[in-house]
């Protein structure tokens, strides 16, 4: 009896118990589709984070101040100290000291209330230089960015994010309009395009950008410290070199060794890594739960195959009397179990893929179905069928024809 005959007779046996077979398959379907969906959710979240971090700008190094230690020895976290200055940023722009850096943008951040007539909106105000636009890979949807001259003189101009624009001006064009911050009037010269990060409503799209001197004047700061310095490396390959140069230069300027630096440098990769670690934990957790449901589905297959062996004991006896060797009987039941598993796998993949299309509309979360995970799910369902079919199949194969024929 060849394999094709065996598959045909397996299909016939499955078809002759439609309800029972469908319920068995259902267990596998649920298991496989939930594995595909949970892995898809994890990968979707990961992709979303990568998109967001990509939107920060390419080849980017983010320099943050180090921690403070107050008189009682209490240490603040990274960013709590005010060790980075505009002068540091200017030094980093020096091509001879840091040859692999092309652009530098220092940034101060403060929270301000912007007022347009009767409307006000609290947002973060970024004080920076003209390079900010390129370093952060941002574009303008209207107007222009402030010029070098405006930056140098601390002109009263502001570029606002798209969400800020719609909050303050509605459908009106903001360019050329006036905003006031604590009584100081600022002219809106440009509006940023959306950052392109897949989820909207992030702070990337709700902000005001002004020259660093203007920001200091508005917030009354005189120390010229900055909260972040964005550094763009010449290329992705030179990111590591730029990282070392920036580290060496800042360490020497601050009179510290790189080991106890009062600043920290993050790359996009390190940000992506951190975010992915969190996602991976969730994926593993959810995937684990889904895998358990798959296991339960597999046990369902074994249960049904055992019932099937018991129920068809006379058929097995007859087939043996007519010349079926034990291996043929074993193969028949194994193929039947594998077919149940594989059918469950195929339907499960279908449900998973459809679910991946529908789910983002319901929960506002991207689902990425990977071909590898789908193939792995199919292989697993087949393996489940075979694995959980082995015991029932060998039980059928061991039956002696006389006992099997005589049983009522």
């Amino acid at each position, binding site marked *: *009896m*060849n394999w094709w*005959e065996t598959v045909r007779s397996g299909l*016939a046996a499955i078809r*002759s118990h439609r309800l029972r077979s469908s319920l068995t398959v259902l267990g596998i379907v649920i298991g496989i589709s939930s594995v595909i969906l949970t892995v898809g959710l994890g990968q979707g979240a990961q992709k979303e984070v990568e998109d967001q971090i990509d939107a920060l700008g390419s080849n980017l190094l983010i320099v943050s101040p180090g921690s403070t230690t107050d008189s009682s020895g209490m240490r603040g976290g990274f960013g709590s100290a005010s060790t980075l200055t505009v002068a540091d940023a200017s030094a980093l722009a020096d091509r001879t000291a840091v040859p692999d850096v092309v652009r530098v943008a220092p940034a101060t951040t403060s929270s301000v209330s912007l007022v347009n007539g009767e409307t006000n909106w609290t947002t973060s105000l970024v004080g920076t230089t003209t390079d900010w636009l390129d370093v952060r890979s941002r574009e303008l949807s209207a107007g222009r960015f402030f010029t070098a001259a405006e930056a140098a003189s601390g002109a009263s101009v502001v570029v606002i994010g798209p969400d800020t624009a719609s909050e303050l001006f509605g459908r009106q064009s903001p360019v050329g309009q006036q905003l006031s911050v604590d009584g100081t009037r600022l002219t809106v010269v440009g509006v940023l395009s959306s950052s392109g990060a897949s989820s909207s409503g992030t702070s990337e799209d709700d902000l005001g950008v002004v020259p660093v001197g203007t920001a200091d004047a508005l917030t009354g700061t005189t120390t010229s410290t900055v909260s972040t310095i964005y550094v763009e490396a010449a290329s992705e390959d030179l990111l590591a070199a730029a990282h070392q140069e920036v580290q060496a230069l800042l360490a020497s300027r601050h009179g510290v060794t790189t080991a106890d630096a009062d600043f920290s440098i993050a790359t996009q990769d390190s940000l992506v890594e951190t975010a992915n670690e969190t996602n991976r934990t969730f994926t593993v957790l959810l995937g684990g739960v889904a895998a358990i449901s798959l296991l339960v589905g597999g046990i369902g297959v074994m249960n049904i195959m055992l019932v099937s062996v018991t129920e068809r004991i*006379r*058929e097995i*006896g*007859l*087939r*043996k*009397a*007519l*010349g*079926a*060797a*034990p*291996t*043929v009987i074993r193969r028949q039941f194994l193929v039947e179990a594998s077919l149940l598993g594989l059918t469950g796998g195929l339907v499960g993949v279908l449900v998973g893929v459809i679910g991946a299309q529908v789910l983002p509309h319901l929960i506002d979360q991207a689902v990425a179905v990977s071909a590898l995970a789908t193939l792995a799910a199919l292989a697993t369902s087949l393996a489940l069928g075979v694995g959980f079919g082995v015991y029932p199949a060998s039980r059928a194969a061991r039956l*002696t*024809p*006389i006992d099997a*024929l005589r049983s009522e």
Partner: protein
Amino acid sequence: MSAIIELEGVRKTYRTGSMEFEALRGVDIRIDEGEYVAVIGPSGSGKSTLMNLLGCLDLPSEGRYVLAGEDTSRLDEAALAAIRNRRIGFVFQQFHLLPSMTAWRNVELPLIYAGVPRAERKERAVSALTRVGLGDRIDHRPGELSGGQQQRVAVARALVTEPALLLADEPTGNLDSRSTRDVLGLFDELHTSGRTIVLITHEPEVAARAQRNLVFDDGRITVDRPTAAVAPAGAS
């Protein structure tokens, strides 16, 4: 005439825990090609055990069983399955047809295990069904056939591999008198055309249709005689 069946000193002992039960206590039989033999005896006499041994469904505890020139006493499960497939056609009291399959699919089964190609299988199954008079019922399922017709499907299935031996275990036990006549008539025809038939029964009128009767009692053959119908006048 060459021998189809040769049993020499065959014993069969069953063990249940410490209990031993000897179902066959030394049986010697020779059955030649073309013979029509009925095995009779009360229940527990050992005739079912004999049927299992003759059908290669079980192995003797002692002694030799040569079927169509092949010693089967020391074969393993797979080899026995192959012998059953090639040499023996079974007809059972309960028909043992698979209810989900049509008549010709049932008849085709032994050919599948013999590795016969698909097209040839259907042809042979249909011709076997035609031979037992069911050429117009090939697509009926067992449930749509009468008891006598079902048993004829089973006979067709037993014949389809052209086996050396047709082994029937109480083939008329579940049939009414008309179907019994029907099936026995079929056996007579097969005998006339040269088939070797061994039939196990407890009904004297069924046994009387055979050419030779083996009477079993307590695990031994007590009588081995030609039946009255074919025996010369004056024989016992």
